[in-house]
């Protein structure tokens, strides 16, 4: 029974299970049992590199889950905030450290200050959150399509600023040789070490977010999605909570961006445009907008599709390459919205629930559609 609090343990158990999966996959990559590494498990299509990227974007998508799925506020500009995190880390650990600050204050940032990049991840969070706070105040009073357009515009403006930032942001070429992260003299590299770092952060953020969802704050957010007027007249300061969750989601995006910068060691504007934001929304929708648990799966499936397309599409469509993946993603989004509006995780939950109760228990809007779909499948 929910009111007896067993669900709190459910969160920890679920995170624990995911942590074990992460550890096992990492162990396979490191120890190569029977001479097989991770990518052999997937027939060479999904590489270990992908697993790191899935972890990074899971962090960003969990933020979108809270914002879109729980508070009901759309953001089509999330890649912009992801970019701010990436660029703050990249700029502050390269140019600013080497030329700017050290020119003004010679030796202010010694080479062996290993914690400087970590501090700059934090700085990125503060900058991103600050920008989101300033933008969020006016923009979150928009509703529905208008909010979608507003956030789309914000994302594009941030993207263009970075692309046109000449020597400060490196324009199209971006910023190269971003340093690896390390703790003291322990470098978080090669890739398997970074994999563990990224997934530790991702699981930590999922745990944090699940706790928030199942709390006074999460209920306020879900109340806003359920009925703004009821939430407001019952005492929820809707403007405050919309702003809080928006800032939180952008801070997540910023953490993801910083981790991306230190992983890729090269930051350029390409991944941060509108298509980047759209990808994030598709990942969130596929996993289930209102499901934090769905985030890693939504991201993972999109990445798997990407890799498969990259590897195989040219065999089907002559001359087609990775850039045509957006067509497939568009189609996928349409299909999700038609057949599985609450995403994979709810689709799966629904199927189990239906099998168990034969359609007696229902949950939320779209339940009927889901059931008929399960019926067709069965």
């Amino acid at each position, binding site marked *: *029974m*929910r*009111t007896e*609090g067993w669900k*709190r343990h459910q969160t920890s158990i679920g995170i624990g299970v995911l942590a074990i999966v992460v550890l096992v996959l990492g162990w396979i990559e490191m120890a190569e049992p029977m001479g097989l590494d991770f990518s052999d498990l997937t027939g060479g299509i999904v590489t270990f590199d992908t697993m790191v990227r899935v972890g990074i974007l899971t962090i960003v998508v969990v933020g979108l889950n809270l914002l879109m799925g729980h508070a009901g506020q759309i953001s089509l500009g999330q890649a912009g905030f992801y970019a701010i995190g990436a660029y703050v880390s990249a700029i502050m650990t390269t140019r600013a450290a080497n030329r700017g600050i050290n020119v003004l204050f010679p030796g202010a940032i010694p080479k062996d200050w290993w914690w400087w990049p970590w501090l700059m991840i934090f700085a990125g969070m503060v900058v991103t959150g600050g920008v989101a706070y300033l933008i969020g105040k006016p923009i979150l009073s928009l509703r529905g399509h208008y909010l979608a357009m507003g956030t789309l515009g914000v994302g594009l403006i941030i993207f263009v600023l970075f692309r046109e930032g000449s020597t400060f942001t490196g324009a199209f070429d971006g910023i190269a040789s971003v340093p690896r992260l390390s703790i003291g003299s322990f470098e978080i590299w090669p890739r398997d070490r970074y994999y563990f770092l990224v997934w530790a952060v991702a699981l930590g953020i999922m745990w*944090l*977010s699940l*706790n*928030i969802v199942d*709390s*006074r*704050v*999460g*209920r*306020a957010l*879900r*109340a806003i*999605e*359920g*009925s703004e*007027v*009821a*939430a*407001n*007249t*019952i*005492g*929820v*300061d*809707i403007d405050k909570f919309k702003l*809080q969750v928006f800032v*939180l989601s952008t801070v997540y995006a910023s953490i993801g961006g910083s981790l991306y910068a230190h992983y890729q060691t090269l930051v350029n504007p390409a991944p941060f445009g509108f298509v980047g934001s759209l990808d994030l929304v598709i990942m969130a929708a596929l996993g289930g907008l*209102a499901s934090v648990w769905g985030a890693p799966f939504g991201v993972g499936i999109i990445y798997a599709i990407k890799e498969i397309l990259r590897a195989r599409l040219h065999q089907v469509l002559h001359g087609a390459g990775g850039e045509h993946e957006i067509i497939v993603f568009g189609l996928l989004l349409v299909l999700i919205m038609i057949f599985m509006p609450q995403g994979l995780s709810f689709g799966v939950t629904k199927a189990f629930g239906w099998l168990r109760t034969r359609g007696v*228990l*229902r*949950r*939320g*809007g779209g339940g009927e559609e889901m059931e008929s779909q399960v019926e067709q499948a069965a």
Partner: protein
Amino acid sequence: MSGARQLSRRESGCPSSVDDVTGGEVAENGILEVGNLRKEFGGLMALDDVSFDVKRGEILSIIGPNGAGKTTIFNLISGVLPTTRGEIRFEGGVINGLKPHVIAGLGVSRTFQNLQIFNNMTVVENVMVGRHLRSGYGMISAGLRLPGGQREENEIVKQALEHLAFVGLDSMADMGASSLPFGQQRLLEIARAMATEPTLLMLDEPGAGLNRPEKEALDDLVHRIRDRGVTVLLVEHDMAFVMGIAERIIVLDYGEKIAEGTPGEIQADPKVIAAYLGDEEIRLT
């Protein structure tokens, strides 16, 4: 009870009384005073200089034909819509212009004619949202499960279950709110509103869509609410139900107050009869 309420209000950081917001003086008997209230929607006059007082501890009903402006009054008092002109005083302080959540914090709670249940939550979670005002832990405490927040959370669950029991829905606590039958969704809205610990509860057509036994249970519930010291203001258009429950009645027609009095007085009032039966001659003159 009232001591505990004072305490929890102070903890939540909400103004502990309307005086903190407006510095007004508390009127002798009236909990709510509405003066020359006017609301225009574009060119349409929804309410035209309506004035009335609500006495502490009474059950007052606003009745009138469809479109008379009953729900508009609720929307103005709860701050959902801005007033065009006029003044609303709660506990002596002016509340028009305040945001809905601030008004709720002062002790005004309401339900909705077209139900506004949070369908994306369970029954008990709906009522737990009602405890929002009377609790205060935030995002960081929630995310990290700090002990203070967890203590508050346990208290929220406990209180929410008590409020559910008050309306008789405690056995359905963990069902999805949308799976409740219509009549019980109405009760859920009342439990959710009561969870905010209001001193004035506004019920917007609580009997609409209910069958006879459900209405009798509602009648009993409204009296139990009043017995807890909560003033009840209700909008209704089922005359039989209103006559049985209300101690005083205000009649609205086309945005104007046409009568005020006890159920007996209202039933005998020719203007009221005309409004309900639609006497065209009287309306034209």
